[in-house]
């Protein structure tokens, strides 16, 4: 009975892990980079680095005037103050039923930033919706996330020596053994992280994945549900024009109401210029909470009288905010973010080594039989998803520094990202039968990531490590340091695989995967 259970769980683990494995690697790697999405965005806007940040220049009223210049007729305006991790102010607006339009401002808050980039937002959107604009991406990620949970649970069941082999890694044994050990170690040691990050990731989209409860209680009216869950205040436009109250005094009143030196982060204006205008001042996230804590004061946009104060979230809503807060890792500062980065990389290693093990286990059998086409397809796709994405991400960052100033950065960077990913994938599929596939891809990735700090040094005046480290600009320096870390680790793996190959070829005589030309060399 027990043996049968383990066998069927092993089957589920193998196929439930392999088939969404390519998707899972993309989600994990993009998620890992998203630990530093705001830092990457900041890094990719070098024209703002030299401008004195926040030199007393920011004011909500000043940002509002910029919106009025660009979009004088709009029904809703959002303004964001500079944040520690995201020092550029944001202005945004939309008209009823239209897409939200937003722009970053120059660091002094005086002008709208031209020639924008998608920055770290690309990795964030790749992480939670595969950069697909409609809900399909969210559902694909949810499907992969469910598979991941199944793979984690079945993995624990089929791992017979989870405690005995807790510290075991045997890189000098057979290649199959080494892959399995690496897979076990990178799965078991950060297992609490893997479980929590996968589960909380699914929780964030619970309304999209399981809308049944909301539908039965609120008759499918999503807006009604959110109003009941989050509270808030809304009123229709009055239709008569009226001048808007100055924003900064309202912000000061809201901050006084919160006390404890809490600062406003967002200001939202509904129906600006109307007699029924509402100004909502949203508080920044408190520094000592994992759960996202919303708090807002609603003012009459004309008289400036207080209309409403947001109630604290109910217990169910608070738990949901706690779980998504654990996932978003916006708490605990740089320490938590670097730890998440590290554990995210362990997750990438877990997925990659799991797929590597699948290949190694089947190598002899499939290469000697005639039914090897599927096997080589998997091998090529593994490299396309794993090293292909790693290469494309480096190209994306490099293109930001190397593209000339005149071109549309956002479009070209994105284009080069996908172009290099496709190119790396074609190389992977073309070289799927070659023993050198992995080392070629890994060396390319290592060189590209390693060159990021150097290219940065050559192309910028204020944004490279020699400038940011002495100035203590850790969020900018962090991106270069991360690139060095990636370059070195990828290089180390490439170096190891090269040695392994030689070693194993000699001892096992397993040259079957080699193309004839390479076998001679």
């Amino acid at each position: 009975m027990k043996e049968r259970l383990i066998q069927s769980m092993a089957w589920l683990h193998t196929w439930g892990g392999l088939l969404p494995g390519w998707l899972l690697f993309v989600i994990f790697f993009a998620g890992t980079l998203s630990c530093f999405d705001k830092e990457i965005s900041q890094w990719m806007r070098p024209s703002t680095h030299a401008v004195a940040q926040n030199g007393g220049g920011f004011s909500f009223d000043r940002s509002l005037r910029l919106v009025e210049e660009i979009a004088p007729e709009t029904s809703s305006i959002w303004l964001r103050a500079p944040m520690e991790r995201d020092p550029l102010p944001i202005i945004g607006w939309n008209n009823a039923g239209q897409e939200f339009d937003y722009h970053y401002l120059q660091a002094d808050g005086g002008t709208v930033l031209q020639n924008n980039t998608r920055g770290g937002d690309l990795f964030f959107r790749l992480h939670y919706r595969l950069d697909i604009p409609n809900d399909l991406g969210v559902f694909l990620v949810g499907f992969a996330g469910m598979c991941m949970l199944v793979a984690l649970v079945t993995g624990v069941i089929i791992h017979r020596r989870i405690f005995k082999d807790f510290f075991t890694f045997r890189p000098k044994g057979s290649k199959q053994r080494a892959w399995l050990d690496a897979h076990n170690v990178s799965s078991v040691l950060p297992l609490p992280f893997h479980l929590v990050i996968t589960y909380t990731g699914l929780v964030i989209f619970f309304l999209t994945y399981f809308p049944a409860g909301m539908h039965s209680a609120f008759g499918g009216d999503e807006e009604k549900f959110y109003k009941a869950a989050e509270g808030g205040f809304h009123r229709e436009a009055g239709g008569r024009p009226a001048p808007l109250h100055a924003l900064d005094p309202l912000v000061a009143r809201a901050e006084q109401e919160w006390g404890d030196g809490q600062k406003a982060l967002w200001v939202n204006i509904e129906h600006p210029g109307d007699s029924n205008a509402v100004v909502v001042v949203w508080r920044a996230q408190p520094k000592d909470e994992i759960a996202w804590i919303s708090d807002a004061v609603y003012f009459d946009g004309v008289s400036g009288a207080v209309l409403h104060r947001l109630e604290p979230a109910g217990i169910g809503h608070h738990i949901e905010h706690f779980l998504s807060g654990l996932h978003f890792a916006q708490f605990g500062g740089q320490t938590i973010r670097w730890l998440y980065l590290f554990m995210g990389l362990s997750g990438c290693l877990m997925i990659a080594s799991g797929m590597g093990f699948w290949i190694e286990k089947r190598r002899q059998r499939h290469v000697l039989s005639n039914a090897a086409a599927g096997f080589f397809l998997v091998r090529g796709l593994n490299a396309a998803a794993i090293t292909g994405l790693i290469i494309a991400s480096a190209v994306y960052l490099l293109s930001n520094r190397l593209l000339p100033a005149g071109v549309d950065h956002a479009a070209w960077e994105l284009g080069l990202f996908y172009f290099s990913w496709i190119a790396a994938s074609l190389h992977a599929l073309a070289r799927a039968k070659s023993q050198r596939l992995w080392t070629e891809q890994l060396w390319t990735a290592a060189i590209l990531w390693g060159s990021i700090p150097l290219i940065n040094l050559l192309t910028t005046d204020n944004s490279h490590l020699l400038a940011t480290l002495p100035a203590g600009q850790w969020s900018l320096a962090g991106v270069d340091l991360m690139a060095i870390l990636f370059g070195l680790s990828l290089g180390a793996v490439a170096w190891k695989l090269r040695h392994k190959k030689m070693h194993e070829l000699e001892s096992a005589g397993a040259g079957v995967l080699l193309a004839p030309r390479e076998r001679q060399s």
Partner: protein
Amino acid sequence: MLLLALSLTYSAYTLLCLSMPKHYRHVTGAAADHRRSRRLFRVGGWLLIALSFASCVQAAGWQFGPVQWVGLLAAAGVLLVFLLPYKPKTAAGLAVVAPLGALLVYWI
């Protein structure tokens, strides 16, 4: 404080690792098992695990401390496991040197 918590976690894992005969033989090169010291390693390891948890909670509070601790457990574990096959003696020595070094940094 983070450095201290990380090195405590590392030492804890090293002790637990040494309480297992195969790793003990690998690190020390001894032919026989270590019946008597085994229990000592195991108890010491768990004590240090508890201590590292306490130091995380002490430094970062009950909300962030446990999250940080899980991260440090993973980091220390991966460091130990990937060091062990290549430099077993260094890996074990680091368990003694790291907490002392961290304490020194903490005092300075």
